């Protein structure tokens, strides 16, 4: 087999094995978190919030929670793996290996997508007990899940390259990733917002991920699917190019 390809495959395997070995923390815990959100918000708001005429609040909330879990865990995987390897110094094992920049990118982002999609599937399986859910447009579900996981995996990779300390990483997560996920319409339809905040929401790429993914289950979208796909493909490409140029420059990896 081609050496470079098999190097990338090994790194992908190692990154998946890494989170799988601590799956209680990396898979079970986020599934539990999502279920708690569902129990609390679903129970409290089911009879008070009407988002679309035809479906209940719980059925609206579940796809949002699933996608939020996909996004947060895709980000967490590449970012925490990289920062840990940087701080403990074991990144040297990768730096001395003949891995291309694309091998790094494909392996880190690929493993992030695996974790995001595994956690998302777990959340979906567990929450199916709570409300009826049908895949109305299964391809949109798949497309948005992959594009969203890829985008957050890439963002996690870039954050992992950038951060030199754990608190910088926590800052990135708490001040950028968390607000953008919570303000993306996971818990509400952006149509219920004042028009100014509707406009702001339409500038948040996370809104399109949640909205497009939810459309696959409900058949209702708050925004345009075409715009959503375009923005996400563009964002994925831009982040891949940014990651590549950071690797090429040896950014914070090669003094």
């Amino acid at each position, binding site marked *: 087999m081609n050496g470079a390809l098999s190097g990338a495959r090994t790194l992908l*395997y190692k990154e998946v094995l890494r989170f799988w070995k601590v799956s209680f923390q990396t898979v079970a815990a986020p599934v539990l978190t999502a279920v708690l959100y569902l129990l609390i918000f679903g129970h409290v708001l089911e009879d008070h919030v009407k988002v679309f005429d035809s479906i209940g609040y719980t059925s609206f909330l579940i796809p949002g929670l699933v996608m939020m879990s996909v996004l947060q865990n895709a980000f967490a995987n590449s970012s925490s793996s990289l920062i840990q390897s940087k701080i403990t110094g074991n990144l040297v094992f990768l730096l001395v290996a*003949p891995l291309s920049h694309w091998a790094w990118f494909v392996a880190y982002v690929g493993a992030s997508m695996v974790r995001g999609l595994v956690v998302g599937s777990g959340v979906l399986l567990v929450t199916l007990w709570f409300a009826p859910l049908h895949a109305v447009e299964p391809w949109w579900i798949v497309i948005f899940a992959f594009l969203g996981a890829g985008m957050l995996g890439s963002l996690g990779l870039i954050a992992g390259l950038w951060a030199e300390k754990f608190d910088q990483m926590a800052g990135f997560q708490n001040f950028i990733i968390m607000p953008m996920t919570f303000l993306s319409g996971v818990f509400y339809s952006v149509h219920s917002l004042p028009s100014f905040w509707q406009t702001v929401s339409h500038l948040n790429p996370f809104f399109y991920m949640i909205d497009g993914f939810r459309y696959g289950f409900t058949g209702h979208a708050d925004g345009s699917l075409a715009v959503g796909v375009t923005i996400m493909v563009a964002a994925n490409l831009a982040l891949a190019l940014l990651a590549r140029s950071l690797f090429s420059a040896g950014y914070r990896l090669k003094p």
Partner: protein
Amino acid sequence: MPAISFQSVAKTFSGARGDVHALTDVSFDIQAGEFFGLLGPNGAGKTTLISILAGLSRATRGRVTVMGHDVVTDYAAARRSLGIVPQELVFDPFFSVREALRIQSGYFGVHHNDAWIDELLAHLGLADKADANMRQLSGGMKRRVLVAQALVHRPPVIVLDEPTAGVDVELRQTLWQFVARLNKEGHTVLLTTHYLEEAEALCGRIAMLKQGRVVALDRTSALLAGRASTMLRFKMDTPLPASLAAQSRVTGRIVQIKAHDAREVEAILATLREAGGQPEDLEIGRADLEDVFLEIMQGEPERAPA
């Protein structure tokens, strides 16, 4: 074709307090099959040079090749030819010893490598630790795994960056026997160490770095022959007279002073007598590498051009 070639390598770190010249115009070749020592005090630039060789750092100027492959433009081939044992005791806490070795092997595109992995484990005394998690290993055992990881893809060139720092006698012996065997089988070995007796015993040729420059480069035997030839060693409890203190090396009670011939020995003893010193266990011996090292390092530093 040399196994390793450093060609006018310079490295400058830019910092808030100005530029630091870690390496200034370092050039030398290591031929295939050599056991080569790179010596120098802390901060001389040894690890910086090795980091550039390994692709962990980038040279500001100059070029480095491994088996003819440029470490920047042809990095994949260069790294496949190179096995690096890093100085820091690093490990990945998620994996067992065998997993870590299989993964490292896979990065180099070498799969189904268990026969060689088992051989490495046996030679390094790790056979019974193969399935232990890296976290459970003692420092010495982790060091052995680092050696195994560096060799897992069978590189022709092996670099050991201070591999015996803080390592017990038994592991040092195991390690040197193994590395000497690899060298006999044709591997090129580049070693940095602070244990000069190790370098003297193992290395056929030595380069000494000081303040980022090569200040000595020769066969080990030539370095020993060409420099301080004899040393006067004795033990003494009273302080040395000032005239002798400047040119001697003192370790606790043990004093060593360079003395080229009998006349110099007599002069030293006379100075001691005048000062009322009582030297014990007097002996005259050949200089070892440590003496040569100190003589070179205490010489006037060559000034870097501004």
